């Protein structure tokens, strides 16, 4: 099973960043990156835009243009946020496509690592063991 619809993608993957902004340790570091990052998912089609400057998570880049756009299947995104996808290897296989500033994604890496357990715990607490890789 995967995500049922775009709203679920938004809820879970967008939710990671909402939790990150609220975290007293991770939140300020995430804002410091100053990045606007757009995720474009397929199966189901959905868009999640994270604006680190405004500390917002939305479904369109209605403010600043994204510095980087990561495109992938929603299943890949789900696995990525559980620490199960290696970004350079996924890019080499075109499972994840990155347009824009890849360097900014590398700077997010240490924060991302701290968010993996948060994401997995959210899935568990919602009874979504089917999404756990």
């Amino acid at each position, binding site marked *: 099973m995967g995500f049922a619809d775009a709203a679920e993608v938004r809820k879970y993957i967008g939710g990671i960043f909402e939790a990150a902004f609220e975290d007293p340790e991770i939140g300020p570091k995430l804002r410091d990156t100053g990045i606007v990052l757009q995720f474009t998912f397929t199966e189901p089609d959905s868009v999640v835009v994270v604006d680190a400057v405004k500390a917002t998570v939305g479904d369109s880049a209605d403010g600043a243009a994204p510095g980087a756009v990561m495109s992938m299947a929603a299943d890949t995104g789900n696995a990525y946020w559980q620490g199960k996808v290696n970004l350079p*290897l996924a890019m080499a*296989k075109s499972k994840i496509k990155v347009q824009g*500033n890849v360097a900014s994604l590398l700077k997010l890496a240490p924060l991302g690592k701290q968010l993996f357990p948060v994401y997995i715990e959210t899935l568990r607490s919602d009874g979504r063991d089917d999404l756990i890789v």
Partner: protein
Amino acid sequence: MTAQVTEIERTYDPVSVSPLAFWAGTWEQRERSFKFLRDERPVSWHPPLEGALMPPENDGVWVVTRHEHILEVSKNPQVFSSARGVMIEEVPDDINEAASSFLVMDGPRHLSLRRLVSSAFTPKQVARIHDQIRRQASAIVDGLVATKEGDFVSQVSKRLPMWTIYEMMGLPEDQRELAAHHADGMVSWADEDVAAGREPGEVLSEALVTLLQIGMEHTERRRAEPKADLWTNLIHAEVDGQRLTDDEIASFFVLLSVAGNDTTRNTISLTARALQDFPDQKALLLQDFPGRITPAIEEFVRYATPVMTFRRTATRDTVLGGQQIKEGEWVLMMYASGNRDERAFDDPDVFDILRPTNNHLAFGGGGPHYCMGNFLAKIQLTEIFDQLLHRAPTLRLGEPEYLTGNFVRAVKSMPYTL
């Protein structure tokens, strides 16, 4: 054992190796700092290296400058682990995993994967490789002597290592230049000329992803059409009853590309220049090339030190050089300093091809991660200098242009005339 243990204060050493400017400076400038540290504070605490790809997660790093301590770290992998990364600045885990293969492993898994490559080097195969390298070195110098001037790195130094590593893999010739170019990108992202306005992370990512793609395509190629080469062996090899995944093989490709290209190339460039700067040594070598080339090569690699640094991570609290190292702290080995340590080498700044003992660190300080390609490097250096010294006696080299970076001591270009 160390008799006296200093309770360290976590204050940064004023002679810092952390700034980008330190690595953008000359070898001689760095050596002045290293000598001071070797004499006064051989194991010292420094801020995380500047110019990393991501915000540092550590407060500081230990810098090890003496030969004896580098040996101690290298030969004690239970305490000084490679599994948490070997680059001296902070690199995302994903990149370490995709780029470094068994270089960032410890224990049995490391040995098994390393053995997959080393097992390809039977005496018969080494003899065959040696013949091929001899012919290739000759062809490269054929090309050189047909010219009057040019860039020595692209005309000579780059070609033999690139040909050797990719010939062993069976990589099609039309892929080799591209692969070698991106192998360079893996070690040169801190250099402003190479980056040309891009962020270091962009340079590294493009290099890594492209190398992985070339490696993956080559795996598919060899799966469809097996040949008697290293790549076919890797695809069919089993470790603990399991074949390697395509991702693991692609990571192998990146590691071998960097290790095969960016080390011997720079040793060739730096040695060619050293033989010009020390004409007495060149004359000594020419007097008895077959008899002296073997010890001379040990000096070539000591003097060049193409790999300047590697890192380990302490797996437990320990003591090194009288300093207390805590579990999880980074220990940076400065091979560039260890290879100039007066305690290990008489007149370390002198290029002396007949050193009676030469326990250099150019292939590492021993232990399980000792350079497995060292014999290939020695074959290449023997053959290319046999050709160069005997067939291009009028070769004159200009000033090398050095790469900015803290890992390989690289010459980007060096003009020549004949």
